[in-house]
């Protein structure tokens, strides 16, 4: 057993920079946490290095999280330049879709080094439709179910995953419910049909509505771009 390195996150960031250079791009994060962006083609080699090499030793993958960046930073209400007419009460549900959807889906990995007592976050953007990244299941076995979850909820494919099946949604479920363009109320509902004497699916009868509009206000108490993750791509 090598001795744990008692380094600060800043020092670790320096070690990572000298080892990986431009392959790992530091991205700003809240609360002084280490966060990096990695290219999809480098993902597996860098993950293996982060797990095995002495100064890193990230033995544990705590979490894998899919993210859909559609509509990031979009506000449902205008809050500046108000107004001759006052704010409208309703919210327009038709969010504008960008023409280019590359950079829409990302996968975020939370790594933990028990040996050095450090955490690190990796983000990788998926290639375009269908979104796909390499699986890290053989590097950290704990990725197995987490990747299945991201596949189920976001439709992100993990190349090389041994058993990529849906995990949380119902048997026979259609669609990827956590995508931003999937309505919260869903597309279908089930009920018992007394004529057919069985449970049937039918288009959902709930009208989606917004109770509290999403607003983005600039707050002078927080310095501009405090940790700069606005404008993710």
């Amino acid at each position: 057993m090598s001795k744990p390195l008692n380094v600060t996150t800043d020092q670790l960031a320096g070690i990572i920079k000298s080892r990986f250079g431009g392959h790992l791009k530091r991205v700003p994060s809240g609360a002084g946490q280490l966060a990096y962006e990695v290219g999809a083609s480098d993902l597996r080699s860098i993950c293996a290095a982060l797990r095995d090499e002495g100064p890193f030793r990230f033995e544990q993958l705590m979490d894998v999280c899919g993210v859909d960046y559609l509509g990031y930073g979009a506000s449902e209400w205008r809050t500046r330049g108000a107004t001759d007419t006052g704010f409208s009460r309703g919210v327009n549900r038709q969010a504008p879709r960008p023409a280019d959807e590359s950079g829409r889906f990302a996968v975020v990995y939370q790594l933990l080094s028990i040996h050095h007592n450090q955490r690190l976050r990796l983000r990788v953007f998926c290639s375009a439709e269908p979104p796909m990244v390499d699986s890290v299941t053989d590097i950290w076995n704990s990725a197995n179910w987490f990747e299945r979850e991201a596949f189920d909820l976001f439709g992100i494919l993990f190349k090389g995953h041994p058993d990529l099946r849906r995990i949380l949604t119902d048997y026979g479920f259609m669609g990827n419910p956590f995508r931003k363009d999937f309505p919260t109320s869903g597309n279908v509902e089930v009920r018992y049909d007394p004529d057919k004497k069985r449970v049937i699916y039918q288009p959902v009868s709930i009208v989606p509505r917004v109770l509290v509009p999403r607003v983005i206000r600039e707050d002078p108490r927080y310095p501009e771009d405090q940790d700069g993750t606005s404008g993710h791509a």
Partner: protein
Amino acid sequence: MPEIQNFTMNFGPQHPAAHGVLRLVLEMDGEIITKVDAHIGLLHRATEKLAESKPFNQSIGYMDRLDYVSVMCNEHAYVMAIEKLLGVNPPIRAQYIRVLYDELTRITNHLLWLGAHGLDIGAMTVFLYCFREREDIMDMYEAVSGARMHSTYYRPGGVYRDLPAQMPQYQKSRFRSKADLKRLNQARQGSLLDFIEDFTKRFPACIDEYETLLTDNRIWKQRTVGIGVVSPERALQLGFSGPMLRGSGIEWDLRKKQPYAVYDRMDFDIPVGINGDCYDRYLVRIEEMRQSNKIIRQCVDWLRANPGPVWLEDHKVTPPHRTQMKNDMESLIHHFKYMTEGYCVPAGEVYAAIEHPKGEFGIYMISDGANKPFRVKIRAAGFAHLSSLDEMVRGHMLADLVAIIGTQDIVFGEVDR
């Protein structure tokens, strides 16, 4: 010669030992399990998606419903993530109250786990004993938040209110004799802190009782020793945390290693197992209850000596006091905006993890500067633990499956989210 085939068997989802709604498809070779395919998601409520459509504060109540037996710890991780993004620190008294209630939560969680685990493998009495003490902690929850289970007590910037000066008492009822009433109310004559202190004095003897029933019990040992052994290397690979990791002999506890709130001021030890089997994990959890009791004592002493605010005075993040609101226009506006639109959180992303009774419970939160989170990801310990079920169970008997589900301390509220 007839061909011998493996037997495929369905387990759950409605099975008392499935701890909720777990469906397993088992491949059996006689009574030996050769493969387990776990079907989860029967309690999936899309908590993360719902949180995206609500102002930050309105999702605190959803956190209660994740792991519904260790409610306050879930809230703690969630409010900690918001606080980190906002860059605020709650008052020190609020942090002590949080530690106090986190540890009470750990005890309730372990009591339910111990009772249910015992029940699963045939020890009925422990269940009754555990629920006796659990009831007292439920009363502590109720005294402070008004709800026995889904308390919604922690808020960004502090806790909802200070500890009450009077512990609520049992009322007269025709179903309860005078002597019973007197006995029940005996410890409830003073404040909530008095009641908690009295509990910490009683509780170690209660743990001794559970241990008398189980620790040297021959049947208990036959059912748990050498069952579900996980080596430290595999435990790391499989993403274990909490008592599951410590049971395998790895000394890792976020309260010590990456302290949050005021855990760095607390004096306690981390119990560690040796063999990584069900019995070691049982011993680890029992010792954790004793250590929690010790932490609660320290919190009670500090809280008695140090009155102070429990909420930040920053009324963009916390609501103003009712009396203020009724006399002051600005407070009224703050209150209205806070309760309707909520507050905007600066853009950024953060991962906040706490040592939950079941393991590492983390909230990964992305904010784009709006009054609602852009994405909330809940890292639940039970999800990672359950994913290792196949590996832990292979080669064991069907009856051991139940012991292994029990030792993982699975609660479907957090696994399915």
